[in-house]
């Protein structure tokens, strides 16, 4: 330390005599030694003050006091800087963990689109943040039935993702695609009501397709109604089914309804991220989607959702505000 002080004083006095680049360079190179000796910035200011007192005798009181002031400021500055750096470090740790969690979620909740005979299925699900609060679950275990669940967890991010994993395992335990939608919703409601806190719940539209008779049976737990297009009559019907959100009250009963699908009929299932336009207060999104879908009816399910997503995303100025999911089932 003493040696460093002498060295610093020498370098400083050289510089005061001649302010050239080479003297400045020597001073700058001292930093490495200072760091090696664990000299803090405030220590350096104190060394500087002592050196100045030696080099320039009778320095005005104000100048000396200003160094004391600087020492105190540097102490505080150093502390704040450390705090800031440790926060940055923590933030980075959290970011890495979130990324891993998102990867795990993607693996867990990966949806494979089945290809049952006679149906063309397409879907898109785009999360607004890293973790998706929407989830689509398909089941197709034999040639007789195919089922689909489209779900939306209230809230976003990690809590929603954790809740979603629970929904997925709930659906997995039901195992078969031929279960009645009303039964599926009742079972899931019990599971979620028991295990989730009061302000967390899930909306779900559940449909089962009887592949032999082309009958689609659906039930809804507080979910945005799906749209059914009847190609013969060229009309849309809302697949409305009043049922309470999953997880609000125990022992809720859900109803289910049958519809028959003919060639070229299709069903569009969405989450509220598709129909909700926050910045367009009087915009009737459902009518817009109906008209758009009608004009695209000659396309495949996949081409249809591509176009619908493209159009809605454009309307949202390419900034989604909520997780966005569409599933289209087309009878051919």
């Amino acid at each position: 330390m003493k040696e460093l002080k002498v060295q610093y004083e020498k370098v400083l006095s050289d510089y005061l005599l001649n302010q050239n680049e080479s003297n400045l360079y020597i001073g700058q190179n001292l930093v490495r030694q200072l760091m090696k000796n664990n000299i803090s910035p405030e220590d350096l200011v104190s060394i500087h003050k002592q050196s100045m007192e030696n080099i320039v005798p009778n320095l005005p009181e104000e100048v000396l006091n200003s160094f004391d002031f600087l020492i105190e400021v540097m102490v505080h500055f150093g502390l704040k800087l450390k705090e800031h750096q440790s926060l940055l470090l923590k933030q980075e740790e959290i970011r890495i963990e979130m990324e891993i969690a998102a990867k795990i979620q993607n693996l867990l909740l990966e949806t494979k689109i089945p290809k049952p005979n006679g149906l063309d299925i397409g879907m898109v699900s785009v999360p607004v943040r890293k973790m998706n609060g929407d989830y689509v679950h398909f089941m197709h275990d034999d040639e007789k039935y195919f089922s689909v669940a489209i779900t939306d967890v209230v809230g976003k991010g990690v809590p929603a993702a954790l809740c979603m994993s629970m929904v997925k395992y709930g659906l997995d335990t039901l195992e078969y695609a031929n279960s009645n939608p009303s039964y599926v919703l009742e079972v899931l409601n019990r599971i979620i009501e028991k295990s989730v806190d009061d302000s967390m719940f899930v909306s779900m539209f559940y449909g089962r397709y009887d592949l032999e008779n082309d009958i689609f049976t659906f039930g809804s737990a507080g979910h945005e109604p799906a749209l059914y297009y009847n190609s013969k009559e060229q009309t849309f019907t809302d697949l409305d089914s009043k049922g309470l959100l999953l997880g609000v009250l125990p022992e809720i009963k859900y109803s289910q309804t049958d519809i028959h699908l003919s060639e070229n009929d299709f069903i569009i299932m969405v989450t509220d991220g598709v129909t909700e336009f926050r910045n367009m207060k009087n915009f009737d999104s459902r009518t817009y989607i109906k008209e758009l879908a009608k004009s695209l009816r000659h396309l495949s399910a996949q081409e249809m959702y591509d176009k619908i997503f493209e159009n809605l995303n454009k309307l949202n100025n390419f900034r989604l505000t909520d997780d966005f999911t569409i599933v289209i089932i087309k009878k051919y």
Partner: protein
Amino acid sequence: MNVNVQFRAEENCIYGIIEGEIDTFTAPVLREELDVINLKEGMNIELDLSKVTYMDSTGLGVFVAFYKKVIKENAKLKLVRLSKRLARLFEITGLSELMDIETDKKVEPANECI
């Protein structure tokens, strides 16, 4: 984006006006504001939502949680003067069957509570 609640208490009634947008960011604020209410048995709580310009499902979560709390204390909750858009949200989710909800009619809410 902000949410703001103003309460007025009259005997066994609490009348609140909620103003602003309720979304993921403001919902915790609303929850805290509602949690301040000292619930008592038989109490009537009326929340005026006519000045809520936007609400997403997180907002619904706050009202459901509050509704459950109110029921537990044997008190009553009524949501009044909902815009069409808000009312639709409660209808689709099946909550309008469960909770006492009134759409934007020309009522004088203060008198109703007395």
